[in-house]
Every structure is written in C-alpha cells, then in structure tokens.
C-alpha cells in the first residue's frame, strides 16, 4: 500500500505535522495484554475487586434505580446491528429511525405528550435544557427550582444556566416534603421563565398540588417544567394532567442496568406546538411517506433548528448522547404494556410502604420523616438511634446490605437521615431482612 501511494514509510504521511510537535519517545503506557485471554484475565482481575448489588441487598436509589431488566432488553441492545450503528441515513439505518420513533411514541403515551426527543445524556441535561428552552420561549432569564431535587442535579442546572439565567431555589415544606406553594407564590414574578419541580421528588415524595403550581406559573406567564420517574406513570398521573408544559426525566429505570451510573438517558417531552418544538436542541424523528405507497419512512423533523445545520446558530447543541438506551426503553415499554406498567407501579408502592412500616416499628428509627405520600423512596430518620447514617450503613454492609443514601451532606436539615429505595426486585423476605438487620444495628 505504501508503494501504491508513493511513500517510503508511514512517517512520510505526517508531512504536515511539524518535527518539533512530534513525540520523540513512545507514550508511557502500561504493557499490553495482547491475547484476548490475557486481556480478559487482567480486566476481570480488577473488576473482581468490586462488590455488586447482586451480592448485596441494596436500598440505594437517589436517581439510579435497580429494577428488573427484562432479558429481551439486553438481547436487543446487545445486537451488533444496533450496538455498532451510528449516524446513517433514514434508508440504510431505517430500523434505528423506526426504533427511536417508536421509543418516542411509547414514551408519548406514558406521558400523554405528543413530542418526545431522541434521548439526551441524562435527566440532568434534560432538566437543564428544558429550563433554557423555557427561557427562550418566554424571553425571560430567571427560573424557580424546587430544592427537593438532587443537589448534584442542581449543580448541573446552575452551571448550565450560568451564562444568562438566574436560578432561584425555592425551599420545600419541611413537614411534608412537598412543594411550598406559598414560597413559590412569593417568588414567582413577571420575570420568571419557568417553575421546575420533580414528582416524585428526590425524597420520593409525591406532589399532590402540581396543578396549583402549574397554575401559579401560568398566571405569571411562566412555563411549568416537571421531572418525573417514568416507572411511576402506570399509577401516578402524567404531569400533562396537572398542567406541565415540559416534562423531563431519566429512562434508566426502563430496562437499563445501573452500571455505576452508566445507564442514564434523559427525555424531554412537550405538546406539539411549534413554539416548543423549535426550541428543542435534540434530534426529533418524524414519520413520512416514501416514493413507494404504504411504506413507512422516518426522518429528522425541523432539522434546521439544530447545531448540525446552523452551528452556533442552532439551539444549544446536538450530538451523540444515549440513543441505544432510548431503543431499550422502547423495548421495555412494549414488553410491559399498560397492565405491566400499572402492576409494577402498584407493586413498588406496596413494597415501599411495607418497608417503611416495617422500619417504623424499630425503636430509634423514624419513618417517614416527611409526611407526604411517597413512591419507591422514603426518608428514614435515625436521630433516635444515637448513630450516624455512615456508621449504620457500615454495620449493614457487614450483613451484606447496602443501606439507604446518606442525606446529611446535601440536606443539613436531614441530619442522620437516609433515603431508602424499594422496587419490584425486593421480596418480603428482603424487606424483613432489612428490618431485622436494622433492629440489630440500631440497638
């Protein structure tokens, strides 16, 4: 090949790389494991130092959730055709376009919204982008954000809004864990672009007054942005029912393994209003006829709004994010159907309430700390136990249990409190084991 192109060595091909920019020595990298067998041994040797949520009984949640992953989800996202495809045309990659259109459509039914994007990186990005969309739509530069969200997500939102948008944090009702509507009323103004809250909140608390919050926002010409856990929507009302204009969230719960936080993907959903649609940075796939009668085709909707088309003239940016997880969530919803989504929601509610009840019987443990209704997660107080959450979790770990997430760092008012997550993967035996173990640990 060198002969064919008239080069003596591959070094000739770097003619444009100045000599003084060349590396003089080989990169200082570890010795490789050239055979597949040796490589596998090496990597597995390191991974063996991990202890997993399969070996432990885990009650960790806080934005990353252990749910059952149907085998078909893994089967489909493991297929080389999907796994190794990328950015082909609507023709050679028709299946990718259809699968992502279907994902958006299935999410659309769950959310009762007509527009859903090709997934963004995670719910952090979805929330941050939704707030910037709201500012562009209203031409305002201030957003109200409920404090009952992940502190890390708030950090992301603040960084992402920093160039032009003021993020004002509104405290939650310390008794119920729900939104403090009076506080929102006081803070909302003609400057407010959006009111953002989560349902369930970071604490698992279900919001009963979503409609009032949306009304307060709308009365001031602001947009209601709600982040939701999609796996709750077989039983909980979709935010569109209580006035949400933009609905966001993470689809990790819908068929993705937890993967140390690697299974996240964010959705953004709105009504089919061009004012909203034209503010999406993401790709939106739409259905279209082809030259052959009766053939479904798919392509990019309003491509000209994107940075692919307009560089800095587009809305934020579009790029590679988490499409395969979108396809997987579509598979998940197709498998579950309306009945499955209803049952899983009911089951999570029942199990988490059973767990809360069981833990509340333990002397020194207070459950729930926040009185509002909850889904999947709830706050457990150990103030009466005379021990920190860190110590309690260390003791639980000896019993092969990962206790709930310590809330004291992000929420000083929830000192000695932990956020416990219970899903359909937990059996009664698991929950009783948690109860018995906590009894021992706290005593």
């Amino acid at each position, binding site marked *: *090949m060198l002969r064919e*192109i008239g*080069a003596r060595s*591959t070094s000739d091909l770097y003619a*444009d790389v100045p000599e003084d920019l*060349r590396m003089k020595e080989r*990169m*200082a990298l570890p010795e490789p*494991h*050239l055979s*597949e067998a040796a*490589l596998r041994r090496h990597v*597995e040797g390191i991974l*063996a130092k*991990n202890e997993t949520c399969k070996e432990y009984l885990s009650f960790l949640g806080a934005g990353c959730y252990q749910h059952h992953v149907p085998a078909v989800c893994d089967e489909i996202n493991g*297929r080389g055709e*999907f796994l*190794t495809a990328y*950015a082909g045309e609507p*023709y*050679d990659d028709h*299946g990718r376009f*259809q699968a992502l259109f279907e994902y*958006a*459509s299935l999410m659309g*039914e769950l959310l009762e919204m*007509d527009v859903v994007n090709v*997934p963004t990186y995670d719910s952090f990005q979805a929330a941050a982008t939704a707030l910037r969309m709201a500012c562009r739509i209203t031409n305002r530069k201030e957003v109200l954000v409920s404090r009952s969200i992940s502190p890390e997500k708030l950090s992301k939102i603040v960084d992402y809004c*920093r160039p032009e948008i003021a993020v004002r944090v509104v405290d939650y009702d310390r008794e119920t864990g729900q939104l403090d509507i009076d506080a929102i009323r006081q803070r909302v103004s003609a400057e407010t672009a959006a009111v953002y809250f989560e349902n369930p909140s970071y604490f698992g608390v*279900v919001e*009963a007054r979503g409609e009032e919050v949306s009304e307060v926002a709308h009365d001031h010409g602001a947009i209601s942005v709600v982040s939701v856990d999609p796996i709750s929507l077989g039983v909980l009302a979709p935010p569109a029912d209580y006035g949400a204009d933009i609905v966001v969230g993470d689809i990790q719960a819908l068929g993705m393994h937890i993967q*140390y*936080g*690697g*299974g996240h*993907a964010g959705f953004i959903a709105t009504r*089919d209003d061009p004012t909203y649609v034209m503010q999406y940075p993401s790709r*939106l796939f739409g*259905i279209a006829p*082809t030259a*052959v009668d009766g053939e479904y*085709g798919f392509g990019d909707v*309003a491509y000209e709004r994107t*940075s692919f088309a307009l*560089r800095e003239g587009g809305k934020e940016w*579009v*790029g590679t*994010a988490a499409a395969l997880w979108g396809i997987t969530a579509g598979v998940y919803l*197709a*498998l*579950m*159907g309306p*009945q*499955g*989504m209803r049952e899983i929601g*009911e089951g999570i*509610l029942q199990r988490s309430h059973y767990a809360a009840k069981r833990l509340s019987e333990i002397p020194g443990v207070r459950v729930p700390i926040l009185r509002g209704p909850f889904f999947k997660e709830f706050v457990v107080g150990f103030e009466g136990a005379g021990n920190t959450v860190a110590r309690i*979790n260390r003791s639980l770990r000896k019993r092969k249990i*990962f206790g709930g997430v310590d809330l004291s760092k992000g929420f000083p008012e929830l000192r000695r409190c932990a956020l416990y997550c219970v899903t*359909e993967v937990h059996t009664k035996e698991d929950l009783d084991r948690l109860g018995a173990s906590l009894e021992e640990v706290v005593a």
Partner: protein
Amino acid sequence: MKDITAIRSAQGTPRLRRFHQAQWDEPIVFELSQPGERGILVPEVEEEIVREVGDVVASLPETTRRKRAPALPEISQNRVLRHYVRLSQETLGADFNIDVGQGTCTMKYSPKVNDQLARAPEMAELHPLQDEDTVQGILEIMYRFEQILKAISGMDAISLQPGAGSQAIYTNASIMRAHHAARGDHGRKEIITTIFSHPSDAACAKTAGYDVVTIYPDADGYPDLKALRAAVSERTAGMIITNPEDTGIFNPRIREFADLVHEAGGLCAYDQANANGIVGITSARKAGFDLCHFNLHKTFSTPHGCGGPAAGAIGVTKELERFLPVPVVAFDGRRYRLDYDRPRSIGKVRAFYGVAPVVLKAYAWVMSLGAEGLEEVARVAVLNNNYLMKKVLEIPGVRAPYASGRPRIEQVRYSWDDLKRETGVHSEDIGLRAADFGVHYWTSHHPWIVPEPCTLEPTESYSRADLDEYAAILRHVAEEARTNPEAVKTAPHNSTIHRLEHSPLDNPTEWAITWRAYRRKVRRDAGESA
C-alpha cells in the same frame, strides 16, 4: 458445472456485491397490539404485604393518581423480540459493513470481548452511591484510564465525566469561563473556532455564553493564520478547534495558533474527536494547548450505540485542574476514592461520574494494544486513508480540494462538484446509491464550504480489499451518474425503504414526532384531540 468463481470475479477483481438490505415492511409497534397479550410478567406482591398495606394506590390523593391507563400496545414477548430484531436487521451496523463512509465518526472495529466485560455483573450491577470500599475495581479502572489519557495527551489532569464529545466541549468552555472569572477577567466574550472544526465547537461555546468567531481556511485549505491574528483581542476567552480538521488536514501552524491566543490572554482547547491518526505521533500538549477532549466512542473503539451511550474525556493543565467537574478519582497508593472537596470546581456536568461501562471498554481496548499498538493504529489509519484517497481520486469527477498533493491524516473531505456539473447528480444521490451496495456514505456538516462534499474515514480496521471494494462502489456509482443518472437520482433501490417525502418533516401542521401525533394529525382518528 459452471465455474461460479469466474462469474464472481474478473481478472482477480471481485464484481460488485449483489446486496439487498433487510426489508421487513414492519408495522409500527402499536399496530402489533392484541388486547390481553403481555410481553413480561412483573413479580407479584406477596399476600402478607398486601394484607399489611392494602391498596396503596387508592390511599394516594386523588390528584396524584392516573385516570386513564397509558395507551401502550399489548404484545407477547416473542412478537416484541421479533419486531425489534427485524428493526435491528434494517440497521447497518459497523459490525457488518465496510464502514469508511461515516467520515469524522471513526467507525472502527469494537472488539466483542470489551462488550462482554462491560456486561459482567461486576460492572453492570454497581450502584454509583455504593461505599467506595465496594467499588475499588471500577475506581481503579477509571484512575488507570486517566493515567493513560495523560500519557496520550500530555495533559496533567483528566475528567471522564462528560457523556460524549459535545458535552466535553461544553465542559471545556465552562472551565474557560471559570478560569477567567477566577481572575476577575469578565470582558472576554468570544471563543474562536474554525469552519472545518466540528459544529459543536461553535455550538457548545455559544451555549456556554460566548460569541463565536469563525476562522475560514486560506487558499490552501489550512486554517488562516492572518485571519486568526485579526480575530484575537482582549475579548478572546479562548479557542476551540479540531485538529486535524474535518478535511483531514493537520494545521502545521497549530503551535503558532496557540501562541497567538495565549498572547491575547485566551485559553486553547483541542477538540480531539479526530485523534485517531495522531495518537502516539503528536499531542495537545505538544501543540501548547491548555485543554483537550477525546471521544471514547471514536478513537478508543467503544461501539457507537446508534448515537450513544458514549463518553467524552477532557484533559487540562495543572493550572486548570481545580475547575474540573466533581468528583475526581483520587488514589493514595492504597485506596481509590471520589474527591468532592473541590471548591473551585465548575460542578456537575453529568449524573454521577460519567459513563463507566464505556470507560471500561476504552480501557480494555488500550490495554490490548499498549503504546506500540496504539501508534500502529494511528499509522495504519493514516495509511488506509491515503491509500483510499489515491483510489478515490482515480475516479473521474471527484476531487480532494485543498492541500493539493499533500498527504492527509485520518480522513478526506472530497468534492463531487465536477461530476455534478457534468451529470446533475448530487453528492447526496451518490450516497443513496452507494447504500444499494451495503455501505454508508456521508456528505458533511453544514455549511458546505466544499461543494458537493463527501467525507470518508477508513480507520485502521479495514483491509486493502475492503478499501478497494469501497472505491469500486464509488467508481461504479460515478459511472452510472453518466450512463444512467436516473438510477442514481432515484436511489436507493436495494435499501430498506425508498426516497422520503421530506416536506412533512418541516411542516408543523403535518410533522408527527410520535404515533399519537400521527393518529391525530394525519390519520385523524376519532377521540385524538390536540
């Protein structure tokens, strides 16, 4: 019997493949619904639990309960599987095509063993908030991979948190902002890029709050130093550029570019999405840059997943390390931990610590190659590219504008402008006809500075025979443009579907981004209100 091999090749040259893509004419998933069918059962709640807590749904406030069941389809498991397997077959993955046609995307082979490793429970079943003592393995892999990227880039500190390349660019712009703010320097409102840098270099800078100044190439296609000189000022916050550019041309004055921006008080970020041809040859640090980023799903081989999950990794100098997203992985020689105590950090850019399974795959890939292997990757990718360029430029009607007679790095942006003038066939048409032979083909990002563009990037993964086959497809299509232009203009013929009618996709009264929107707007189903 007839000699079949003689028909399949003439004088040792294989004939073009008789390809037809899978065409299942598959319904939309909702059309598969049969009332009462189920794809999977969810675990039943034990009776004791039900007895204990009762019907919790009924106890929720009325306003919080769902009134109507979601209109999801009801489909048995094997029919769901079949539907999605069919859709997968209608998707041209890199696993089974000569994927040199998606230029700038670095479609290389993603070794299967790495996918298997990432699916192990020791990776897949780790919760990000587990105690650090229980995740020493994955922290070790992240830490080791950071050391690897330091050696490759020459940078002092790495963050693996960004979810992909564009988010990494944004993170770098955010760090630039923090750097200037920390110095009390609030007048810097501009970021400079070049037109042949990825669109995200401009778009992410804009999103971070900057005005974008774009440098166009000089007559030879190199970034214009004079234009840069005119662009830099006390308003310059920094420069974010791809090098080699999306034309495959390496900017030989890259160091002078960096010096000029530094003299004006700006920072320099090196978009290394196009690093595949220069790993082990040169680095961002060598060029005097302060920040850089890599796309692990490109240079580092992790599969592209239809557009993610991916990962972006950024590298910065010591001076900028304090601004990195939280947390960073720290190692005291004995134990790995996540360090959140970083008061000057820009904060979070993505949930938790980035896309750990993708980092794992990239780590495994590097560990299968070592320093010598990685450099060989770059050299073979560049050799493949220049070989393919020779073969493609032998086809009448195509040119490689700029840097005439000079070798390119890892890709080339070609122009079919001559062929279009001669035949009326556009670059897009050529691409759609190429699909009939089982390969991808990509024009380029907008704006089309190079007229009738196409961008090919062969990476190290393809053999000489593969490259010959790809060039033969283009030669055939170019010939067809002259002999039978209609066949090209109406392509694809052997793909899954035929030419789209694009207008509904840009018309708000017709576009349908979900099935429910389609039923309401196009099918006008009863009961489907706006």
